[in-house]
C-alpha cells in the first residue's frame, strides 16, 4: 500500500466506519441511560424541577467562589484545554471543510495563526494536566487505565495534527493519514469511555438541578 492508497483508505472506509461507530455508540449510550427511567416524585414540589434542571446546566459551568479557590488548578487547566480543543477541532478551516462534507453545512473559521497558537497552548496544558494526574494524590488514586488511555487519544490528534500542518518530516501524505487515523481512534473509543461526558454531562446537570429545583434549592 502506497502512502496515497493508505491516505485514501483512512479518509474513506476507515473514516466511515469510525463515524458510524461514534454515532451509533453515542446514541446507544444515551438510550441506555434514558431507558433506565426514574420514578415520579410523589412529594409535594416546592420549586420547579424543569427550571432547576435548566439552571444547573448553565450555572454549573461557573464554579462557586469557594470551590474555585480550592480547585483552582483543575478548573483553570480544565477550561484551557477544553476551549483549546473546541477551537482546534471546530474553528480550523480544513476541519470545517470536513464537517461540511459530513453535515452539509459550515461555519466561519478562525485565522490559522490563532488556531495554531491555540494548539500549542492546548498541547502544553494537556501535558501539565497529565503530570498533575500522576502527581496529585487524589487524582492518582482515582485514575485507572482508562483515564490514561483517554488522555492519550485526546492528545494524539492534537500533536499529529500540528506535525501534519507544519509538514515536519518527509512524507506529508503519511502525516495527514496518521493524523486522521488518530482522530478515528478517538471517535471509536469515545462512546465506550468517559469521553461520553461531553454529552452526558448535560443529562447529569439536568438531573442534579431537577432534583434540587423540585425542593426549591438552586444547585
Amino acid at each position, binding site marked *: 500500500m502506497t502512502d496515497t492508497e493508505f491516505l485514501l483508505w483512512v479518509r474513506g472506509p476507515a473514516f466511515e466506519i469510525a463515524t458510524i461507530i461514534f454515532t451509533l455508540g453515542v446514541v*446507544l*449510550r444515551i438510550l*441506555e*441511560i*434514558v*431507558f*433506565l*427511567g*426514574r*420514578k415520579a*416524585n*410523589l*412529594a*409535594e414540589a*416546592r*420549586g420547579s424541577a424543569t427550571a432547576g434542571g435548566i439552571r*444547573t*446546566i448553565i450555572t*454549573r459551568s461557573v*464554579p*462557586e467562589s*469557594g*470551590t474555585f479557590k*480550592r*480547585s483552582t488548578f*483543575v*478548573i483553570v487547566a*480544565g477550561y484551557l484545554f477544553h476551549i483549546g480543543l473546541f477551537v482546534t477541532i471546530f474553528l480550523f478551516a480544513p476541519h470545517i471543510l470536513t464537517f461540511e462534507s459530513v453535515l452539509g453545512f459550515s461555519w466561519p473559521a478562525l485565522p490559522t495563526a490563532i488556531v495554531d497558537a491555540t494548539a500549542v497552548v492546548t498541547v502544553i496544558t494537556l501535558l501539565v494536566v497529565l503530570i498533575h494526574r500522576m502527581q*496529585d*494524590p*487524589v*487524582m*492518582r*488514586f*482515582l*485514575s485507572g487505565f482508562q*483515564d490514561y488511555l483517554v488522555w492519550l487519544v485526546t492528545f494524539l490528534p492534537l500533536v499529529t495534527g500540528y506535525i501534519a500542518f507544519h509538514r515536519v518530516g518527509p512524507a506529508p501524505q503519511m502525516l495527514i493519514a496518521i493524523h486522521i487515523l488518530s482522530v478515528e481512534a478517538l471517535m471509536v473509543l469515545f462512546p*465506550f469511555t*468517559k469521553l*461520553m*461526558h461531553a454529552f*452526558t*454531562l448535560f*443529562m*447529569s*446537570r*439536568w*438531573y*442534579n*438541578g431537577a*432534583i*434540587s429545583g423540585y*425542593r*426549591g*434549592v*438552586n*444547585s
Partner: protein
Amino acid sequence: MTGATLERGINALKEQIDAPVAAFFSSCVHCGMCSEACLFFTETGEPKYTPIHKLEPMRKIWYQEYTLWGRLGKMLGLSKPVTDAELTDWETLVYDSCTMCGRCSMVCPVGNDITYMIRKMREGMAASGHAPPGLIGATQRAVTIGSPMGVKLPALQAQINHVEKETGIPVPVDVEGAEYMCLLSSMEIMNFPEYIGAISRIFKHAGVSWTLSSEAFEATNSGIQIGVSEIAAELVQRIVTAAEKLKVKAVISPECGHAYMAIRWEGPNLVGRPFSFKVLHILEVLDDLREQGRLKLSGKEAQRLTYHDPCQVSRRGGVVQQPRNLMDMVAENFVEMPDNGTMNWCCGAGGGVSSNERADDLRLKAFNRKKEQLDAIQVEGLVSACSNCRIHLEDGLEEYHMDLPVLSLTETIAEHLAEN
C-alpha cells in the same frame, strides 16, 4: 436486615440504578474536585475519602449490568463481579465517612448528585449485611420501640409534665382536628425538652392550634440512614396514620435535618402515595408566622451570632432563607460563616454518623472544618435548627476547646416572645 446476603445486596443495588445514576457514572471524568467538597477528605487528606470513590462497587454493577460494553466484558470474563470482601472494605467509606451532606453534589463540574447515589448505595450495603452495628441497633430500636434511642411514650409524658409545670401551658396530645401535628426527635425529648416548651409558648402566643400524637411522635427515621426502604416506609407510615387519624392540616418536622428529609421529601415516595396533609419544617412555620405578623418579639441577642445550616434542612431540604429572616428578628449581630446557606459545611455527624460509634474519632477530626469556619468570623454563639447538629457541635467545640454556646433557633425565638 435479617437474611442479608451478597446476592440480596447486589440485587438491591441493581434495583437502585436509574437514569440519573447512569448519567452520573457516565459523566465522571475523575477530576477529583468532589474530594475538596468533602470534610472527611479536607480534614484528613486521605484520597480514599473522595466522594465518588465511595461508590465504586455500585459503579461496577452499573457498568457490568447496564452498559453494552460492560455486559460484553462480563460475559467474556474480563471484569470481576463485586465481592463480599469488596463491600466489607467499602462499609466504612459509605457509612462512617459520609454524612450525605450533599456538598459534593453542589461542586461536581459535570453535575453528579453523588449524595443521591450514596443514599442508594446504602440500600445495597444494608441488604448485603454491611451496615454498621450502631446503626443496626438504632434501626431495630426504631422499629420495635418506636425510637432509635429507645424513648417510649412514658418518657415523653414525663417530659411533657415537666414542661407544662415550667411554662404553665398545657401541651396538647391527640387533639383531633388541630391544625398542626408536631413531631419530635428522640434527642429533643431526652436532651432538649426545652424545644417542647418553646413551641408550646410560641404557638400559644401566635394562636396556633397544634397537637402531639401519642402514637407517632418520633420524627427521626433510621431506615433512611441505614438504607432499608421497607423500614423507612414503615416508620413514615406510622406518622401518616396518626396525622390522618387526627385530621391535621400539616405535620411539622422538628429541629432535625434528616427527619425533615425523611418525612418531607422521601416520605410520600416511601409509602407510595402523596400525603393528604402538608409537611413543614418548624422554621417554615415560624417564618410564615413572622410574615403574617403573628410573631411579636421583644429585645434581641446582643452577642455576635452565626447560623449553622443543617445540611438536610438547607442544601438538601430547601429551607435556606427562613432561618435568616428569623435570625434577623432575634440577633442584633448576625454574621454568616464564610461558606453558608447551601454551601455550608456539615457538622460531621449527620446521615447516621452520630449513631455509629465506630466513626466517633473521624467525625471529631472532620469537625476541624467547622472550627476553621468559626475561627474566621469570631462569633460568641452558634445558632442551629437540628438537635443532632447541636449535640455534635457541642461535642466538637469541647474537643477543640472552644467555648461557644450552641442555641436552638426555635428556643431563641421563644425566649424573645413579647408578653401578651
